[in-house]
């Protein structure tokens, strides 16, 4: 049934992504593709994989943005431009429009933990759910003709044949910088909820009214370039020289 759960789900499983930490290495993109092409549902196909116009289905993609402060086009003039790597996958929204637009009941949100999934045996591949998603979280697999999306690695997180440390989504497990965190955002005392509270985690496109479960942690304020430049200037003078170096400094001055 493609109606959303009538009550708030007891658990709100999701990701917290730390934009201060992400280095944009794309390891999560690859591990996601690797795990999910052999796991839940149809494989994530590639089109023309060895040709010039290669493309394929991905459930997680990293964009990179440049953020320029007002009047900050010239370095140091009014703050500094910065590069922010931006991982983006399904946000498992509470008011998920991709679920309600589905005509077949293939798209659904689980009442127990809030994960949004596609039952591929019911999907007709009409593409309307991808149209309804403002975040571009859903991609039609062109080989299978069904809609693919992040499952929050539902086949890992409850999988007791895996070691406990591996019972997190593949992208979280693989992130070498620890920029991705998995947990229950419905539980205020969970590690992810505390992280969101401390760092001011926020929703993407709140104006779309989708109430995403996943949260993003903003980049921390950056140390200005001028502040770092101080030590470089220091290297040019000898005020702090002591002992032998102070004597040598004095001698060299006299020569």
């Amino acid at each position, binding site marked *: 049934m493609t109606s959303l759960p009538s009550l708030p789900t007891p658990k709100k499983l999701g990701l917290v992504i730390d934009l201060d930490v992400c280095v944009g290495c794309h390891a999560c993109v690859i591990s996601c593709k690797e795990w999910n092409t052999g796991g839940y549902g149809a494989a994530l196909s590639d089109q023309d994989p060895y040709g010039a116009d290669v493309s394929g289905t991905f459930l997680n993609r990293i964009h990179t943005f440049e953020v320029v402060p007002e009047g900050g086009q010239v370095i140091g003039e009014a703050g500094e431009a910065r590069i922010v790597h931006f991982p983006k996958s399904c946000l498992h929204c509470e008011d998920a429009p991709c679920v309600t637009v589905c005509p077949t009941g293939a798209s659904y949100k689980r009442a127990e933990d809030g994960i949004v999934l596609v039952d591929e045996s019911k999907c007709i591949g009409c593409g309307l759910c991808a149209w309804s998603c403002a975040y571009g979280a859903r*991609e039609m697999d062109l080989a299978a003709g069904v809609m693919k999306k992040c499952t929050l690695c539902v086949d890992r997180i409850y999988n007791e044949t895996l070691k406990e440390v591996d019972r997190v989504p593949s992208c979280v497990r693989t992130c070498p910088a620890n920029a991705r965190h998995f947990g229950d955002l419905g539980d205020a005392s969970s590690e992810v909820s505390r992280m969101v509270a401390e760092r001011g985690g*926020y929703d993407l496109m709140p104006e779309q009214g989708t109430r995403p479960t996943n949260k993003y942690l903003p980049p921390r304020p950056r140390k200005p370039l001028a502040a770092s430049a101080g030590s470089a200037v220091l290297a040019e003078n000898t005020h702090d020289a002591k002992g032998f170096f102070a004597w040598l400094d004095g001698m060299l001055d006299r020569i």
Partner: protein
Amino acid sequence: MHPAFSIIVFTTLSGLGYGLAAVLGLGLLDASTLSVKLAHIGALAMIAAGLLASTLHLGNPQRAWRALSQWRSSWLSREGVMAIASFVPLTVTAWFAIVEGRHLAVAGLAGTLMCGATVYCTAMIYGSLRSIQAWNTGLTPLCYLLFAAAGGFLLASVAGYSSGSRGPVCAAIAILFVVAAWICKQKWWTRLRTLAPFSTPESATGLGHIGHVRLFERPHVNENYLTREMGFKVARKHALKLSRLAILSGGLAPVLLLLVAILAGGSAAVPAAVLAVFCYALGLVVERWLFFAEARHAVMTYYEG
């Protein structure tokens, strides 16, 4: 948005078919004449062809029957249910007209109402999507309904003139609907072109508090499903010209031709009305193409610098 050929054919053909079927259901025309009988068959054929075309863009069309199950939440499902349900009164009305040569008022009116409901559901598939701001307005279903009504009365005027009764009435009503439809569409276009984007790169990334956000690198070098499906931009360059051409072909030409039919009458009326239908259909195809090609999807805020 990518203007898929199958969806343009579907909305144009089924719009004309439902329009004609709805007008026939009103019982304005003489059901005993051959041309009105043919009109009934034509309406059903256009609806059926449109629905078949709509299944062409599915990844797994063999499961299309499943789309009838989620009418509680999905406009696409509602449209499927209404399309099939409306075949019942439309087929009954057509049967009575073709076999018995008379109009069955109850089935006819039920058919008219259900045609309107089906077109409304089709329009709401698009109109309900918040992610596509251009479509997310009450003007979208209004345009679809007016265009269907205009097309219906245009086709009915052909049937009316060739059957020798009520041609001028249908033509006069068609003129009113054609004018109303293009006024509504013009309002839709004005709204589209003056729209302040609902979602911006700043709101999409949440980084607006630092400064102006600009895409530095796409996730992958090549195109993907999202950029192909949602990132269609070819039409924007010529959008204004194309919309004027659509109004000329789909609005001005049919109105002038119908005026000729009404004023000249006689043997000139039928060819003039037929030509009006063709001009209108051409204008409508351009309008439908622009409807998709001009609409910008919110996800493109993540892909455009």
